[in-house]
């Protein structure tokens, strides 16, 4: 019975590993130019709309920018060069993903750091709780709990 269960889990693990491997397996060839253009447009903010990227917006500027990015890629410019060209025109606020340097580091590092620290703290606490012997409540504890728990006993 138990052996059969283990087989079920091993087989499942195999299925998951295979599925993930097929998905992330590097496929030959570089990203297509179309894909590059789409990714770049999605990273740039549409200056005349609010909150939309050049990729999503249907505005004049966004359409011109998509054409411009495609043209620049065809001219052999790198992603970084194209990004820089837009920063030069519109300023840093054109980038929807702040660069992870200077003050921009906060927005990337703070959540990751906080999560890792909190998860670490949680794991340490769980392990400590596990090692500690179980405490048994004393009568004083019970009285304290009762005093905070029964609101309606008061007149």
């Amino acid at each position, binding site marked *: 019975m138990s052996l059969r269960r283990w087989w079920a889990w091993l087989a499942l693990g195999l299925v998951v590993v295979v599925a993930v491997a097929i998905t992330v397996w590097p496929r030959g060839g570089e990203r297509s130019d179309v894909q590059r253009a789409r990714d770049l447009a999605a990273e740039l903010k549409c200056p005349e709309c609010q909150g939309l990227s050049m990729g999503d917006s249907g505005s*004049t500027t966004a359409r011109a920018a998509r054409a411009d990015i495609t043209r620049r890629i065809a001219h052999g410019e790198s992603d970084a060069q194209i990004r820089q060209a837009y920063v*030069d*025109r519109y300023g840093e606020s054109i980038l929807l993903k702040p660069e992870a340097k200077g003050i921009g580091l906060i927005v990337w590092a703070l959540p990751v750091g906080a999560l890792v620290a909190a998860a670490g703290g949680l794991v340490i606490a769980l392990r400590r709780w596990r090692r500690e012997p179980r405490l048994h409540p004393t009568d004083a504890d019970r009285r304290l709990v009762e005093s905070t728990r029964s609101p309606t006993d008061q007149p």
Partner: protein
Amino acid sequence: MKHPARWIALTVGAVVAALAVVLALQVGNDPRAEQNKSTLVGKRAPSFDLATVSGGKVTARGLEGKAVIVNFWNSWCIPCKQEESALKTFWSRHKDDPNVAMVGIVRDDTAGDARRYARNHGMNWTIALDPGSQAALDFATRGQPETYAISPDGLITGSQYGPVSVGNLETMLASTKSTPQ
């Protein structure tokens, strides 16, 4: 101060207080106000090579050595209509000055509509068409009307987002003559 809850609460309090100060600093700060200034001011003006409504051509190179006012507009935008008389007044003052040029670039409009509008409304300065919106993009426009001043040596010395007055235009023109910082 024995229990960690106190310390955590106080830390959170400090963070919240800092955030509140940051937010308080921003109150009354109109995020749109900043838009009035283009990041291009002080930089080299983008080059352009455009067809005009009258069948000619206008290029950045051809205007070198002149102070140039570049105005993005179109036939359907109301703020463009608001600034029309200011542009006309300004142009009537300076059209005979060989060192000053003014180019209206059509943004987000059909060539026919723009041509008809310019003719009917007596816009007698150079009106250029920008079919792929490349010039609009190169000038980092965010809408129309948007106006730029270019100095004779090809630097952008002034810009305005939204309708201009005659005063604005004169200030921009003056900025092309002083050395940019």
